[in-house]
Every structure is written in structure tokens, then in C-alpha cells.
């Protein structure tokens, strides 16, 4: 079992920007900002740390759609939120070969936001009827799209310097 | 005047023909009546097993429920799917329905109430009952529906497998009585019923009979949760009810054979005109067995297909063979 500190170090070496978050207010422990190219490494690392995939989804912000990954762990209390903006041509590398469960989540995200996951084995519509697969219902239009800094915690930049939290570990 | 001519015509007919017509009418009436009663009892008993009243509002305690259902089914549209094989699709319900009436010919309801006492009565009735599998196969194949075909294949495999222990267990009774005639078998058990001499054969026969009529826990050909409605998925209206009537009549036969071969047929405490009123004991015994069939159906889950066949080939057939062997040895001694 790895300690939280080791996990954070591993994440920072990906490289990724890791913020620690107050669990009592926001409901998760680590906020990980990634580049699109690092997502597969991120998922592979968490797989090695024995995390399971809670969901993959997206948020439509300016300038680019952000893909959200949430992971949690069966053996201790740790919830990790990864976020990565899609590349300029609206694609994202798939993690469905690392976490099989991501397969459906990515298909759903493609339905709802039109994000293409490169390398996905079967990127067919999941929830929407096939003939309406290009509807992308969760995309916001026009002025409704907010910039990424409008939907972040205002003091997020400062969180990263907080003490590494102890006592979150719970033994089974 | 007209009456006289009518009587004359009737008198000029061969008496055998009149006999045939009358028995045919009585048998057909009995087939329908039996299905109505059984259908009603099944729904009512199911209700009572399940802490509810069951049919209640159509007539007192819902006794007209099945008549109403039957009339409604008569008035329904009969759909032949576009892709189905129309001649086979029409043939299947009739093929299921007509032979079951024929089996009544050899059933001895009472010592005088029997249409024909064939020497091979038992073989005749089993042969006719086996036709049901053909009807189901045709229904499944002709529907051109994958669920129907699954149901049909299951039904045939199941019937072929369960015919064997059924016949073997009945054979051990035949060994003891030295006759295939239904009447002869009943008469042979005047001191003691065969169920006491042949309990294993009776059990095997009853289980196999349950499978033969596709009743739960062996209702795989029409397993709702797997195959929607199995082989009769595509049948609507009156053709669907033909399958139901055939099923209920087959149930009646399975129990009737059990009563004739093992439970002493019409014999019972003497009543006035016993040659005719023996039918009361006969029907009472049959319906008691039918109640057990219904009881089992509403109490047990369904078995899986390989378990069903394994049970037959690995347990029922060896046991019935051993039973037959033991019977043969004892009879010879």
C-alpha cells in the first residue's frame, strides 16, 4: 500500500499539477491537472496503485472541453479527480484498454460532447439513437460557455502548498 | 312427420357410426370442460398460494373467468407473420389439439365407461401423446422466430429424453400385469394398488410426466424469462388457446395414466351403479394428482436445460432400468 505522499510524488513526476483539496468541503482528495498526452500514463499509474474508475465525463468550458476522470480506491479513502483539456482537434487518447470500464463512459462522452477518443475500439453511440448521434446535447451554446477559471475554486492555486494530509488512510 | 323420418334415418345408420359420433362429441366437450376447469383451478390455486384471491369479479368467485377468456380469444385477430411458413403455422395448433382427443378412446373412466378397450391401449396413448412434440416442433419452425425455434428444440430434446424413463417405468407395471390393455391393468390391481408394489416406478413416471407436459420446474420450452413465450411466441387468438387446451389435456392424460396404472383406476369404496359411478373416484384421483402438478409449478424455480437432461440420463433412466430389472426378476421367480 502506497502512502499518499508517494502517490502525490508519482503523480507530480508524470508530470501533472497536483492540488490537495479539502475533502470535507469538496468531496475528493486530489485534483490532478494533466495534458492530454499524459492521460494514459496517469490511468496506468492509478491502475498500478489499485484504484478503480468511478467515471469519465466532460465539462464544456472555454477554451476547450475538459475531460474529467474520477478514481477511488477499494482499500482506503482516497478519491482522485483528473482533468485534461482535449487537444486542438477535439480528440483525447482512450484509457479503455487500461480500464475496461472506461469504454462505455467514453462512448457516452462522445455522445454528449462529441469528443473523439483516439484508439477506442468501438466508438459507437451509446445512449442516443444512432441516427441522432451528432446531436451532442450537453454542449453549451454561445454565451453559456464559461471560461475555465470561472468554474474553478478561486483559491485553487494556493491549495497545492497545503500540508500533505495525514490520517486519511483507513485500513480495511 | 319430420321426427319419424329423422328416427328412420338414424335407425338406418350403422349403430357403430352413431356410437362414434356421440363419443366424439362427448370427448370434445370433455376436453374443453377439462381445460376450463383446470385453467380456473390453476389461476385460483395460484392466487391462494400467493396470498391473494385470484379471479373474483367475473361471476361468483370468478368461475366464468375462463369462459370469458375463451370467448375473447375466439374474437381475437389471428396473425400469421409475414416471414412465417403459413401452412405449417396453421397446421401446428391443430396438430397439437386434435390428437389429444383421440387418446380418450382407450381411457377407462369406469368399468363400463370406455370407448374401446384396445389390446395395446397403453402403447396407443403414449404414441398419441408423443405427437405433441411434433406439433411443437412445427410451431417453432413455422413461426420463423428464433425464440420459438429455441422453445421447439428444447421441447423435442426434452420429450425424447423423458419418453424413455416414462416408458421404462410403465413397462415394469406391464411386466406385472402381462397386458397393455388399460382395463386389464386396472382389474389387475384389485387387491393392492401398484403404487405400493412399484413406488419407484410411480415416482419416476410422475416426474417424467411433469417434464413431458412442460410444467414447471421443467417448463423450458416456454420459459418466460428466457424465451419470452417459447414456441407459441407468435401465436395469437384461438391458436394460442389450442396450445393451452392441448397442454391441459396432456396434463390430464399424464395423471390419468398414473391413476390407471398405479392408483387403481376407478376402484374405490363401492357406490351404487359402480360400473358407471366409478368415474367419480377416477376423476377425484386424477384431479388430486393435477393439484400436485399445479402445486409444484407455483412453488419451484425452473431447472436449466443441461441439468434437465442430466437428471434424465444420469438418474431417471438408470433407476428405471434397475427397477425394471428387479421387477422382471421378481416376476420370473
Amino acid at each position, binding site marked *: 500500500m502506497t502512502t499518499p505522499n508517494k502517490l502525490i510524488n508519482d503523480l507530480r513526476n508524470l508530470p501533472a499539477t497536483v492540488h490537495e483539496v479539502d475533502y470535507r468541503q*469538496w468531496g475528493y482528495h486530489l485534483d490532478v491537472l494533466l495534458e492530454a498526452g499524459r492521460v494514459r500514463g496517469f490511468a496506468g499509474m492509478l491502475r498500478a496503485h489499485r484504484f478503480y474508475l468511478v467515471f469519465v465525463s466532460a465539462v464544456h468550458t472555454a477554451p476547450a472541453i475538459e475531460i474529467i476522470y474520477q478514481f477511488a480506491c477499494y482499500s482506503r479513502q482516497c478519491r482522485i479527480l483528473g482533468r485534461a483539456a482535449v487537444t486542438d482537434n477535439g480528440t483525447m487518447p482512450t484509457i479503455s484498454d487500461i480500464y475496461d470500464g472506461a469504454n*462505455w463512459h467514453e462512448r457516452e462522452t462522445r455522445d454528449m460532447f462529441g469528443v473523439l477518443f483516439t484508439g477506442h475500439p468501438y466508438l459507437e453511440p451509446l445512449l442516443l439513437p444512432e441516427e441522432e448521434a451528432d446531436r451532442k446535447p450537453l454542449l453549451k451554446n454561445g454565451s453559456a460557455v464559461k471560461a475555465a477559471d470561472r468554474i*474553478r475554486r478561486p483559491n485553487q492555486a494556493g491549495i497545492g502548498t497545503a500540508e500533505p494530509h495525514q490520517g486519511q488512510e483507513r485500513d480495511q | 312427420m319430420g321426427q319419424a323420418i329423422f328416427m328412420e334415418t338414424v335407425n338406418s345408420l350403422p349403430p357403430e357410426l352413431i356410437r362414434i359420433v356421440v363419443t366424439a362429441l362427448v370427448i370434445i366437450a370433455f376436453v374443453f370442460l377439462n381445460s376450463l376447469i383446470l385453467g380456473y383451478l390453476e389461476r385460483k390455486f395460484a392466487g391462494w398460494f400467493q396470498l391473494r384471491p385470484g379471479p373474483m369479479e367475473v361471476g361468483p368467485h370468478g368461475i366464468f373467468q375462463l369462459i370469458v377468456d375463451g370467448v375473447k380469444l375466439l374474437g381475437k385477430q389471428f396473425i400469421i407473420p409475414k416471414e412465417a411458413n403459413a401452412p405449417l403455422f396453421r397446421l401446428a395448433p391443430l396438430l397439437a389439439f386434435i390428437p389429444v382427443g383421440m387418446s380418450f378412446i382407450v381411457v377407462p373412466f369406469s368399468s363400463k365407461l370406455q370407448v374401446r378397450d384396445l389390446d395395446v391401449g397403453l402403447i396407443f396413448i403414449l404414441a398419441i401423446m408423443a405427437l405433441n412434440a411434433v406439433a411443437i416442433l412445427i410451431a417453432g419452425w413455422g413461426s420463423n422466430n428464433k425464440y420459438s425455434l429455441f422453445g421447439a428444440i428444447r421441447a423435442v430434446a426434452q420429450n425424447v429424453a423423458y419418453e424413455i424413463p416414462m416408458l421404462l417405468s410403465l413397462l415394469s407395471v406391464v411386466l406385472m400385469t402381462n397386458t397393455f390393455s388399460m382395463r386389464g391393468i386396472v382389474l389387475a390391481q384389485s387387491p393392492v394398488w401398484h403404487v405400493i408394489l412399484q413406488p419407484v416406478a410411480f415416482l419416476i413416471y410422475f416426474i417424467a410426466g411433469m417434464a413431458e407436459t412442460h410444467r414447471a420446474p421443467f417448463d423450458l420450452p416456454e420459459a418466460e424469462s428466457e424465451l419470452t413465450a417459447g414456441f407459441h411466441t407468435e401465436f395469437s387468438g384461438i391458436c394460442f388457446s389450442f396450445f393451452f387446451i392441448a397442454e391441459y389435456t396432456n396434463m390430464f392424460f399424464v395423471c390419468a395414466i398414473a391413476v390407471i396404472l398405479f392408483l387403481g383406476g376407478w376402484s374405490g369404496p363401492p357406490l351404487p351403479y359402480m360400473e358407471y359411478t366409478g368415474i367419480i373416484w377416477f376423476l377425484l384421483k386424477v384431479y388430486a394428482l393435477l393439484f400436485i402438478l399445479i402445486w409444484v409449478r407455483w412453488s419451484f424455480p425452473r431447472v436449466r436445460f443441461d441439468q434437465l437432461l442430466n437428471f434424465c440420463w444420469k438418474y431417471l433412466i438408470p433407476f428405471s432400468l434397475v427397477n425394471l430389472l428387479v421387477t422382471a426378476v421378481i416376476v420370473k421367480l
Partner: protein
Amino acid sequence: MTLGTKNQDRHSFYLNMGPQHPSTHGVLRVLLEMEGEYILEPEPVIGYGHRMQEKIGESLTWNAFMPNTARIDYLSALMYNHGYVGLIERMTGIEAPRRAEYIRVITSELNRIASHLLWLGAFLLDLGAFTPIMYTFDDREQILDILEDVTGSRLTYCYYRVGGVSRDVDGTFVEGTRAFIRRLRSRFPMYDDLVTNNIIFIKRVKDIAQFTPDMAMRYGATGPILRSTGIGYDIRRNEPYSVYPEFDFDIPVGTTGDCMDVYLVRVREMEQSLRIIEQALDSLPEGPCMTKVPRRLKLPQGDASFSVEAARGELSYYLVSDGSDVPYRLKIRPPSFSNLSLLPELCRNMLLSDLVMALGALDLVIPEIDR
């Protein structure tokens, strides 16, 4: 019969199961590539119950979305309520009074039992046993009576509020719940006799559809499915919310992860839920059941997550807020979505009858999967 195009040499064909089929529990469609009665490749096709819950969630104010949460998974509606109010309370820092938290726990656990009872009946119905569902529904109706008294509805409750619950419970509720606990406890031996020890039942579910811990991790499976494999992961214990840490209860786990274990885990979970309810009733604190909440409550800017243990596994809400009272994005992570996605791997080369068992063991609620 039409032959499939894949696996031509194996004479496979496609069988379309659903969207209307008795054993798919609603509008799931499973496309099966089969050879005889063996399934080569099952492919679930979902979306027949898609009701745009996420879109509605980001177009209504957070308060107006509350009734919709009950309609995502109508069988564990109170737990969906719980997750949503928990999320808003967590973000805004509002704390519900202790009495309200106790009431939430009691009603949530009652709802969990109701959901498991329905599952028990439906699972046995899939097996071809027609009668048990009537008995389980009979017990379930008792719960619905109790809950209807306090919440006002039978199925789609909207009882929890941010800062408490909408209506206080009274002595009738406490008495009724206690009577129900006694009744259900007396019914368990009957279920054991009729179901657990039934030889056909055991033969049908033993060693069928084995879940493994590794599979669960790869697919993100949670709930009784996961616990049947021996991992005692329960959000109530691992990420405690509400007042669950104050109660003494076990997390029932299985060993092999087959359908029998799933069945046993669910049945034992009902017993544990009864224990929780009993403790909560014993120590139900006095006081108000609602705190003051400002009429127009804005959510702070940022994103938050809240997970609860619903009847089928981990339910996770994830909300992104831009500082107004309308969520910017609301992601609902239903447990069955991930649980169902492991069906293809679980059911490869399996008999059709066993697929029905596996689907039953997953305990699917399709509108929850499709949202």
C-alpha cells in the same frame, strides 16, 4: 434464420433480447451473438430509457432538480435524494440537525430493504419461480406504507431537503418501523427455507457468472456485486457520510463472487439494514429536523463530489458550479452503469439461461443506467 457475419465458420446467429423482454427488467436490449444456446458475444445496447437527467440538472436551479433525483433510480429514490442533498450541503457548508440525519439514515435503510426485496422477488421470477415475488412484495408494501406516511409518496420520494428533512417523524412512524422489523425478521427463516435451501435454486445459481476482484476494479463495479467477491467496500464504511459512523453494522461479503454469493450478500445486507434502523430508532435524538436555509442559496464556485452507497452500489454526484444557483454541470454516476458494462466479459460462452441469471444478479434499473 439469418446467419451472422462474424464467426461465419461457427454458424453463429444474432438473437435480439429486448428492449421488451421479461428478463431485461425494463428497456435494456442485449444483442447476443449465439451458437446454439451458447452466447459467443453479448452486447448490451442501452439508451432506451435515456431521460436527459444531466441536461435537466444543468438547466434547473439545484433546488428545482431535487424531485428528478428520485426518478433516476426509482427503487432507491431516498438514497439518490441523500446523495444530492449531501452534495449541496457539502458545498455550501450547511449542516443538517442530528435528528434529521437520523431520520435520513432510517428512511434510507428502509428504502434499501425495499429495493432488495423487490430484487429478490424479481431474481426468483427470472428463475421461473412465480410465487416468491408475491411474498416479497407483501413485505415491501409494509415499507411503502411506513414511508408513505412520512414522505407522502409511495415510490418517487422527495423527502430530504438541504438542511434537513421536509417533515418530522412521529411516534406512529417509530412504532410502525419497529413492528416492521419484527415482521421481516420473522420472515427471513421462511425465505431461507423456501429459497436458500432449495436444491434447484442452488444448482441454478452456484458458480454462475463469477465476478472477480480484478474484473470489478477494471470496470469500476461497486455494491453487492463487488462485495460478493470478498472486497468489503461500502461507501457507508469507507467514505462515511451522514451519521453512519455512529452505528455498529457489518459489511457482508461473499467469497466466490457467483450469483449465490450475490444473493446471500443482498439478503444479509437486509439484516444489517434492520440492525442499523434498530439502533437509529433507539437513539433517535430530539430536536428540530430542519435548519434555516437561505431562500436563494448560491453554490460556491468550484467542483465537488459526493458519493453514497445506493442499493446497487456507489452513486456519485459530481457538480461543477460557476457561482450561481444553477449547476454548471451535473454528472451523475449511477452504480449500474459500470456494473452492466462488465456483462460482455462476464457472460462470454455462457448459456442463455445463465445470462438471465447474471442479468438478474446485477439488479438493473435501466433508467438509472441511461439517466
